[in-house]
């Protein structure tokens, strides 16, 4: 049927479609590596302002060992970050004490026990919980939890490690729960069915089959929660009392690394030591969260490999 006129065979030519395909490929590749570019840029730009100071002008030993944070003292400002680190650590630690059991517990309930409508509803609620902006959480710490703590524990100040820890715990829990539930979901159903076929109860299946196989993912969930708490800014700024202090009890006010940057950056002159030391704190925050995320990633990857 060579005479059929509608047969317009495509020749081996680099036509418009081919060219557009190439163009799209390169444009999309640029989008693809944008995340890498941005992470590098973030590090470069905060290093640009803060690394020189950290390396040459800052007494690093003093920075990590002294609780004296007096960045505006005359004539000699003091840059001891120990109290800030302790503030961040105490708030994050308390938050994890609150959040980890509840996050894992609700992940197990939602992922393994709940079914149908209940499950969907709970998932939606947890999602909404995770979506609440941190400034709203801070506001809640300030206006609702603060008077509550003063009344219940009969203490003079309610903006404390306890307050910020509880708020941060409530913030981090839904995120951990979501990631943990994903980890549970990644355990193949065949494992569960095999164990159930042998007459195990649901709880036995969870304890002896599901939890051990999802272990890595669960640890990763906790790690990401820690990272989240560590880097949280607004809520901690508003709920922790904001006084530079080595805490000795949950009823002490503290100041976190993130909150320090947020509250002081607006008042520093660009290029001053105070300005640069805040960027140094930023480098510290960046590196710690980087390591936490890297660890979580490695763990999840290992978990995936085991299941495959």
């Amino acid at each position: 049927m060579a005479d059929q006129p509608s047969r317009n065979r495509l020749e081996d030519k680099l036509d418009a479609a081919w060219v557009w395909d190439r163009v799209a490929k390169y444009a999309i590749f640029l989008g693809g590596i944008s995340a890498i570019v941005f992470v590098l840029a973030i590090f470069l730009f905060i290093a640009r302002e803060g690394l020189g100071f950290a390396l040459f002008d800052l007494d690093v030993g003093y920075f990590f060992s002294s609780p004296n944070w007096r960045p505006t003292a005359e004539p000699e400002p003091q840059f001891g970050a120990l109290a800030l680190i302790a503030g961040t650590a105490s708030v994050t630690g308390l938050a994890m004490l609150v959040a980890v059991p509840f996050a894992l517990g609700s992940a197990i309930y939602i992922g393994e026990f709940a079914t149908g409508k209940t499950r969907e509803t709970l998932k939606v609620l947890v999602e909404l919980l995770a979506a609440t902006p941190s400034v709203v959480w801070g506001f809640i710490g300030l206006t609702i939890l603060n008077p509550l703590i003063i009344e219940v524990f009969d203490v003079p100040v309610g903006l404390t490690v306890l307050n910020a820890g509880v708020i941060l715990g409530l913030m981090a829990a839904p995120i951990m729960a979501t990631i943990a539930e994903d980890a549970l979901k990644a355990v193949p159903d065949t494992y569960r069915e095999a164990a159930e076929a042998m007459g195990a109860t649901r709880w036995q299946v969870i304890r002896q089959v599901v939890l051990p196989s999802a272990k890595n993912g669960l640890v990763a969930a906790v790690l990401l929660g820690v990272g989240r708490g560590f880097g949280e800014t607004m809520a901690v700024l508003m709920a922790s009392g904001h006084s530079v202090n080595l805490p000795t009890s949950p009823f002490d006010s503290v100041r976190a690394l993130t909150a320090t940057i947020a509250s002081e950056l607006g008042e520093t002159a660009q290029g001053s030591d105070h300005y640069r030391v805040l960027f140094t704190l930023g480098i510290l925050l960046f590196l710690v969260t980087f390591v936490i995320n890297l660890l979580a990633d490695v763990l999840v990857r290992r978990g995936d490999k085991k299941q495959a």
Partner: protein
Amino acid sequence: MSEVDVRGFRAESLDHRNQRNQRLFQLMFGLMTVVLIVPVVIIISLLVVRGGPALSWEFFTAYPAANMTAGGIFPALVGTLWLVAVALAVSLPLGVAAAIYLSEYAPDNLLTRLINLAIINLAGVPSIVHALFGLGAFVLFFEFGTSILAASLTLAIMTLPVVIVSTRETLQAVPQSFRVACWSLGATRWQTIRKVVLPNSLSGILTGIILEVSRTVGETAPIMFTGAVFFLPFLPQGVMDQTMAMSLHLYNVATQVTGVPESLPYGVALSLIGMVILLNSVSIAFRIHLRRIKKW
């Protein structure tokens, strides 16, 4: 005979204990879930009770007055819209491109691993570090000054992972057989993406965008030093102007201003969380709707 009995007895007892354990643990985990959710219900009710009276048509359409102790939130509301719109204009094309790369092009190699790691990190870097970056890069280095542009770029980079991750998931849900069928018809990779993969993912991508908007609306730290300000008596006219924003406004009326009537900050908080919940509900409803109309 007796041995059989003993075994039967034991099995029954064990079974009994297992059943009890089962119920106990189910109850325990259920309670934990409730404990996690109840405070939020209480908090939202409190916000509604205390902030509700402040809400009125005027509250949303008037400027703050009397040193922020009275009046409304109009410029903050408009400013947040500006920030969201500009941030979205940047992060949407970038995020969708990144998701397309990861779902349609990326081979299983080191670069892809690095990209995934970078996405996780971008999402995990503290918001205040994003703020430092925005200040160092956009405000100072690129000399945008404190402006909507600088603040929105900072927000865009911060929320980029939300778009990437949700879009990638949607794209990967399109069955591979569609792509293969399309390729064998002579379609290029790009034609396949444009005519088959993307049209069937649009609603999923939209769900991700709504989520990103809700994140952007609530972010405070990244805009504090890059473009959002305490008070402006007029609306921004372009991307190089400064602006007020809902989230920062809440922080300010809650902590920086004295003599504020109690209902005012509650009203701002209620409006803010109302926006976020509304956006999330739309996104969730959309997702459920999508599952129903699935074409395959």
